[in-house]
Every structure is written in structure tokens, then in C-alpha cells.
């Protein structure tokens, strides 16, 4: 396995009596693009801020490029790019002045050409002030500021939130561009599952502060599956199947959401339960994510038919 560039061990953060993050153990190997997924309030921003040493952990630890997050040295920080939530930059600065500011912290590794090219591509001018830019333009400046120092590890906190499809695609292109250089790693949180599927090769899923998955995207795609089992008479009352996340029942069929259950195991179970036949339901990543993070005994939000 490749070298681990980002790792958390039992990372825990309490706000008052409530854990925002509960014993998070994750490892991101070098050279991948890792999609950091979780519903609103799942603890993604807390985790990212802990990784960057902006918050102090209640327990556990995080480390970036082998350096503990609570004591990141200037030399380590210089190898890390961080795109903050909402792309908050100094409003009074012009793009040019902001470049000068940022550049001072990446001596010898600032790609002025790339920055200028990106600003031109975005049809911006270095004379424009940040406060006069739209949200999308500010995000573009933020992307250029993050890529110009050619960071070894790039951490982005929901960089495409609220952006239009074209600018979102530019962020994806930026990530791919960075990752094709040797040894670069990206971790980004997002709610746009289609974007994550496109560029990520690993995903981390957290839910209510708890780690639910840390694996390759492909592994997630193949292990979270839904199967509809049809019965001749009535579906069994008890379902005992390892890997069952949750199920929905109608009179003669069962809809099971499974994790890490192979075809053969499903077939075995169906035979033992006396099922007639079963079909796997094709799901895209978004469906899988919704099923995966759904509560065990869920109800539909809008229940049209009377039960």
C-alpha cells in the first residue's frame, strides 16, 4: 500500500456534551483523490479543521504528511494547500495583491504562469477587488491560489458548494490536473455525488461524526447494493443476514439494502428463506449514498399511500 499522507487516529471532538466527531480513524494514501462525504452536520468541516490544526482535538490525533496536526511546522504547511469553506478571502485586496500575499508563503514553488493563465481563463483581471467578485469568481480565485503553489496535499472544504456546473467542472479539472503530477494527493468534501464519482478514486463517508466507510470508490460501488426478493406467499418476519443495513417490506416482497454481501450469499439466503426469485437493483453513487446513510428503521419523508 502507498505511503499514508493523511491519517487520523481516534480523532474525537466534543462541542459541549455532544460529539461532533467520534473516534475517527481514516487513512488517505498518497496519489489519490479522496472524496469526503457526509450529510450536513456530519462533521466534515470539523474533521478538516482538526486536520489543519485550526481546532484542537478532544481526544485522538490527526497527522498530515507525517506531522501532528496540532504542531504543523511552517515547512509542512508549505506543502499543504487548503481551500476554506465558502472561499473566504480578504475582501479589500485585489486579485494581484492577494497573489503577492499568498506567494510570500510558498517561496520557490509559486507558479506565477499557472496563476496568470487561470485568472485569464476565468476572464478575471488582477486589478479586480475580491469584494466586487461574485461567489463563483471568488471560488475561481481561491482555486488558482490553491493550485499555483503546486501543493503536495490539497485539502478542500466543500469547494463546489453553491457553484454552477461550469465552475464545478473547473474545480474537477483542477484536481485532475494536480493529481496527474506525480505524488500529489487531494482530499475534498462535497455533496455532489456525481462530481465525487467522476474524479475520486477513494471515498470516506462519515455520518453523525462516526466513520462509516473509508475505501476505494469501486469497493463502495460494488459493496453497497439493493436486492428485491419476491416470495410466493408472504415475506418472512425475521431476516437474519449478515451485512443487512435495512429493509422495506411489502406483502410479497422484500427490499434489502446490503453491504459487502456477495451474489452467492444472497442466493443462499433467498433459497433458505423460501423466496421465489430475486433481482439486484442498479444504483448510482447517489442512491447508494442515500441508502448507506439512511437510518436503520427509516420511513419515507412523504408517505403518499396509507399504510
Amino acid at each position, binding site marked *: 500500500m502507498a505511503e499514508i499522507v493523511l491519517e487520523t487516529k481516534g480523532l474525537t471532538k466534543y462541542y459541549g456534551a455532544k460529539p461532533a466527531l467520534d473516534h475517527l480513524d481514516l487513512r488517505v494514501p498518497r496519489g489519490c483523490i479522496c472524496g469526503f462525504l457526509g450529510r450536513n452536520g456530519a462533521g466534515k468541516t470539523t474533521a478538516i*479543521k482538526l486536520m*489543519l490544526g*485550526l*481546532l*484542537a482535538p478532544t481526544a485522538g490525533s490527526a497527522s498530515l504528511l507525517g506531522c501532528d496536526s496540532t504542531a504543523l511546522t*511552517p*515547512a509542512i*504547511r*508549505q506543502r*499543504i494547500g*487548503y481551500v*476554506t*469553506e*465558502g472561499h*473566504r*478571502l*480578504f*475582501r*479589500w*485586496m485585489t486579485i494581484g495583491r492577494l497573489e*503577492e*500575499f499568498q506567494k*510570500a*508563503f*510558498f*517561496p520557490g514553488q509559486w507558479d506565477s504562469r499557472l496563476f496568470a493563465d487561470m485568472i485569464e481563463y476565468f476572464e478575471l483581471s488582477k486589478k479586480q477587488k475580491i469584494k466586487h467578485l461574485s461567489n463563483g469568481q471568488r471560488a475561481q480565485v481561491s482555486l488558482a491560489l490553491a493550485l499555483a503553489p503546486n501543493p503536495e496535499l490539497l485539502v478542500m472544504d466543500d469547494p463546489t458548494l453553491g457553484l454552477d456546473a461550469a465552475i464545478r467542472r473547473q474545480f474537477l479539472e483542477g484536481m485532475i490536473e494536480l493529481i496527474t503530477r506525480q505524488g500529489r494527493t487531494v482530499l475534498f468534501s462535497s455533496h455532489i455525488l456525481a462530481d465525487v464519482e467522476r474524479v475520486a478514486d477513494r471515498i470516506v463517508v462519515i455520518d453523525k461524526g462516526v466513520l462509516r466507510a473509508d475505501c476505494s470508490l469501486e469497493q463502495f460501488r460494488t459493496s453497497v447494493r439493493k436486492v428485491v426478493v419476491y416470495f410466493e406467499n408472504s415475506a418472512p418476519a425475521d431476516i437474519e443476514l449478515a451485512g443487512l443495513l435495512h429493509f422495506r417490506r411489502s406483502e410479497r416482497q422484500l427490499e434489502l439494502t446490503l453491504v459487502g454481501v456477495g451474489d452467492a450469499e444472497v442466493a443462499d439466503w433467498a433459497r433458505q428463506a423460501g423466496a421465489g426469485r430475486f433481482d439486484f437493483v442498479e444504483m448510482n453513487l447517489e442512491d447508494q449514498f442515500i441508502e448507506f446513510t439512511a437510518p436503520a428503521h427509516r420511513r419515507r419523508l412523504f408517505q403518499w399511500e396509507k399504510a
Partner: protein
Amino acid sequence: MRFLALLRKELRESLPWLLLAGLLLLGVGLLTVHYEARFAHMRHQHWSSHSGLGPGEVVNTYDLVHSPHLAWVAMWLAFIAPGLGLVLGICHFWVPLFARTWSFLLHRSTSRMSILAAKLAAAILGFLISPGLVWTGLYWYACRSGLLIPEPIQILVAGWIYIVIGLVVYLGTALSALSTARWYTTRIFGLAFAALAAFLILVQWHLGWVFALAVLAIAILFGQTVAAFLSREF
């Protein structure tokens, strides 16, 4: 290089307020000096024409004992300097909270201490130049321009004491801004301590005590601010 980038940023953010404070002080100062000079001249002429003495022969003792002109400017400074301290404190430590730029600022390839040091250096430099140099210049101008009778040095020192109080208020504001507690608990400490220190400094008669108290207040607030900044979560 990195520190200079930080210092430039902080100075540029402070600049409008430094200019405002400096221009206000300069305006009040020049107006007072020139108005007061003409007023004294008129008084002089009036008295000399009614006392039978020739021009220049009389020393106006009233003007010597009560020279209200620069004292009046110093009183303005007593409000301008702490006001500037409050505004700079808000500008350096509170605005980033509202603008949510702390995350961007803190992820720098430098120590957290130098990020704080740049802010403090900008404030000290600002205080030295904008009310400091302006005030000293005004004193010099009032004494040397020939428009006024030379002022006692105490008035210059009094102005500088107000400037130091401004710095105390700046640190107090910083400390309150950095606190994550509630206002009615420990968050008020920074501002309250600064106010108390300012009061205690102002009621002293001996320069030695003023100096001692100012150093003590600044040392306490500085230590607390550094500790708060280095351990704070953003």
C-alpha cells in the same frame, strides 16, 4: 519575507483608521494653534493699548499660566487614542470572525506567533506614527512656529500617556475578541481590565507611577492575548 507580507496586510487594513485618527488630531491641533494664536494676539493688543505700555513690553501672565490651547488638543487625543485602540482591535481580531477569514489567514507557512506579532507590530507602528508622530509634530510646531508661547514638556508627555492608553485599549479589545466565553462571564475581562488600567493611569500624579502602571497593564494584557491566540480554536 513572510512576516513582511503579514505586516503589510495588517498595516493596509489599519491604514484608513490610522489616517482618520491622524488627520483628526492634526486638524484639531492646527485649528487650535492658529485660532489660539490670533486670539492671544488680539488680547495682547487690547491690553497694551489700554495700559499705556508699548507693544511687546508686557508679558501676559494669564497666557503663561493658563495656556489652554495644546491642553485642549491633548484632551482630543485622550479620546482619539483609546478610540483608535478599540477600532484597531476590532479590525484585527473581530472582523476576521465575521468575515470568516481566520481559516485562510491561519494556514500559513509560518508560526502562529508571527501572525499575531504582525498584528501587534502593525498596531504599535500605527500608534507611533499616526497619533504619536502627529502629536509630537504638533507640539514642536506650536513651540517653534512663534505663534504661541512655548509649552511645558509635560503637555507632550501627557499626550504620549494617552497614546499608551490607546495601546492598552487595543490589547484589551483583542483579548475580548479572542475570548470564546460569554460576555457576562470572562469575555468582558479584556475590555474591563483595559478600562480599569486606563483609569488608574490617568489618576496618577507621578510620572514614575504612570510608567509602572502602563508597563504592568501592557505586560498582563500582552501575555493573556498571546496565550489566547496561540490556544484558540478557529
